[in-house]
């Protein structure tokens, strides 16, 4: 089922939001950028949200591929909600929307805090909203999921028979279970004293950044219900695939899918001694009137 790129483009979030002034029409800040009537050079006046890579672009001229249909003129000041396009000697971004500087946006601008921080905080917020269960507590155990904790045959001394376990890929997540002793539940409902989550012990690129847990870790856990393929004992040809997970979105058919909590995003775990982040969110939540 080929997905049209335009569609994929829509569900994009702006990654770089800034207030800027149109400086030149139909031109770019570097060669290699295919220039059309929607290509303009913009001076960045104030960065509102940015990843670290672009934190230093205040006051600089960059290339913007305009998104909306509205006409723009040189000297016009707008707020650009952009995502990335071309990085060379200069940078070119794709604007998803442009808006005039209104009261609403003015509010956004007035806030003094660092644009990189603001973006990081928004990302945490997104993860919090998406989470099925948010708890604070402590990792008391880390173990192999039942079923993979099989005897490592006399393999040790004379490695021979192929052990059970699914197909092998360098992207194998090497699933582990972390047992969290719950201090407090901040979102969702959970009765038991403990909650178990799955995490990848793999060092592979596909799992880079996913928190790796070890006993003694304490902090906030943002848990997401995910479909994981259940490792089953080897049965002749019909063999399970170990370590396949897809966060809800892509449901994967067939054999032995189990649901488990995961915390696969960098921001899904925050140690107690780390200020701000989830703490701030939880505090603000607790202030909200319940029900």
């Amino acid at each position, binding site marked *: 089922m080929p997905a049209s790129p335009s569609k994929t483009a829509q569900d994009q979030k702006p990654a770089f939001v800034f207030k800027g002034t149109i400086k030149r029409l139909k031109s770019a800040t570097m060669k290699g950028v295919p220039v059309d009537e929607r290509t303009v050079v913009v001076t960045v006046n104030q960065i509102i949200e940015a990843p670290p890579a672009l934190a230093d672009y205040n006051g600089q001229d960059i290339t913007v591929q305009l998104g909306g249909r509205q006409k723009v003129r040189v000297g016009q000041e707008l707020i650009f909600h952009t995502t990335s396009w071309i990085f060379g000697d200069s940078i070119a971004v794709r604007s998803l929307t442009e808006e005039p500087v209104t009261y609403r946006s003015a509010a956004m601008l007035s806030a003094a805090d660092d644009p990189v921080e603001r973006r990081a905080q928004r990302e945490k917020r997104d993860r919090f909203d998406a989470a099925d269960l948010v708890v604070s507590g402590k990792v008391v155990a880390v173990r192999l999921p039942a079923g993979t904790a099989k005897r490592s045959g006399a393999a040790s001394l004379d490695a021979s028979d192929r052990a059970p376990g699914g197909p092998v890929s360098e992207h194998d997540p090497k699933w582990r279970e972390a047992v969290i002793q719950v201090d407090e539940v901040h979102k969702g409902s959970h009765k038991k004293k403990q909650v178990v989550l799955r995490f990848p012990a793999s060092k592979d690129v596909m799992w880079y950044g996913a928190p790796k847990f070890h006993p003694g870790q*304490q902090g906030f856990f943002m848990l997401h219900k995910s479909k994981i393929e259940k490792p089953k004992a080897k049965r002749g040809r019909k063999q399970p695939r170990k370590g396949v997970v897809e966060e809800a979105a892509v449901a994967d058919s067939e054999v032995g899918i189990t649901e488990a909590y995961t915390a696969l995003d960098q921001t899904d775990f925050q140690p*107690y*001694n780390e*200020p701000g982040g989830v703490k701030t969110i939880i505090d603000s939540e607790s202030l909200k009137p319940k029900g």
Partner: protein
Amino acid sequence: MPAKKTTKKAKGVTSGAKGKKTVKKPAKSTAKKKSATGGLVMSPGVLVVNMIPRSRSGEHNQDSEPNLAVDPAAPLNMVGSAFTPDPGGGPNAPIYFSTDGGNSWKLNSIVPGNGTFGTGDITVRFSPSHTLYAGILRGDVSLRMNILRTANFTSSTPMTVLLSRDNVDQPYIQAARVTIGAVKKDVVFNGDNDFNSVPKTATINHTTDAQVAAPVFKTTRIDSRVPSGVDAPSIRPAIHSNGTVYGVFLHRLSASGSVRRYDVVVVRDDHFGTGAAPFTALHDPTDALSGRRVALNRLIPWLMPGLGQERTGSSLTIAVDPTNSKIVYIAWADRVGTTDYTLHVRVSKDSGVNWSSDCLTVTNATNPALAVNSVGKIGFLYQQLTGTTLATQRWVTHLRRSTDGVSWSDLVLARTSASTPVRTFFPYIGDYNHLLTVGKDFYGIFSASNFPDPANFPNGVKYQRNANFATHKLFNIDGATEVPVSIDPFFFKVTELT
């Protein structure tokens, strides 16, 4: 042997003799001239030496948490220590020693209980009787404290165990030769955190006759109040020849994970601890209990890591003015803001009864060490973390000096990377380093990255191990095999010219 030649050359440039010559020349011009070859020129009156001997050129251990002893009666003789394993992996851990005023250093494996990392915590002190004392945690048994002694620090005979006690942490030893009842004797005071007396763990083990075959140590618990759980690891004594002995420690008020609160408490004894109730001479004006609380309810984060790659949680030092036992300085680290680790220096001029406000405050620094010289000048050694990103962060080792505790000079001994090498264990550079005086001169030791770059040692440095300052490379004893950058101990001497 060509390899020898190259390092010989380096020596030529930096050896004490040459160093003295440069005193007369304008240092700048010399610096220019030499910088091409590695810029190892010493500033006038400053000697900085990487203590790793040439035969150990291949080592890349994390030689952190250094300590230093200089024989007051023979200042050419000195002993250093660090987390340096016995190169042969034998039963005894090494000390560093020098017999030429710190210009060259060698290892001598005489500290009982060598572990995979050498000895555990170790501090060393000379008495003018030429006797070397050491307070250590053995490397082969966890939390076993030994107090050690040797009369000959170059011989192959291991040091004698004077006292052995289990479940004790961070011994910090001081020694002096004093007259007690017309007799000259070695007194030894060893601060340690003794888990056998929970919760009042702050302890000083002391003797007034350390040279006898089997010295008798008195064990004094110096915390008169009841801490939450235990006291902090650092307990520091300071001896004055007139019988005054100070102690400083961190009294724990509360602990929740890394969030811990303490009072900074100073105790005093006026008779070398010989009385019935040692270290109770100084009382607090508010609760009248023994031990003057200099600072109350300080947040001292217990973090691993808490400052760069280094941990935080217990940084403390004390020094008494040899010219006047009433004048005593202390320094500690705590958190005043949200992420900082801040050093505070304070002074009392009336034997610890009243205390100044901060006479020096340093942000994001650790390993404070204080010493006062024979003319009452105070020296303050510390290591400050500068820069914000990993790439730019550096450990800057400062020696600040002051005659009045108000205006301070600043001498930067090292400015080394805080990101390389990568830590192999805690502590990265040490939970302490050391500063001491003999006469007017300041002697000290610190641990830092050994990346051979003149820019890292603004007042010069001298390496014994094979290094090329032009290519910034370290080499093994074969002079060819590259050796990775690591943490090494650095000795320094600052000669007071006035």
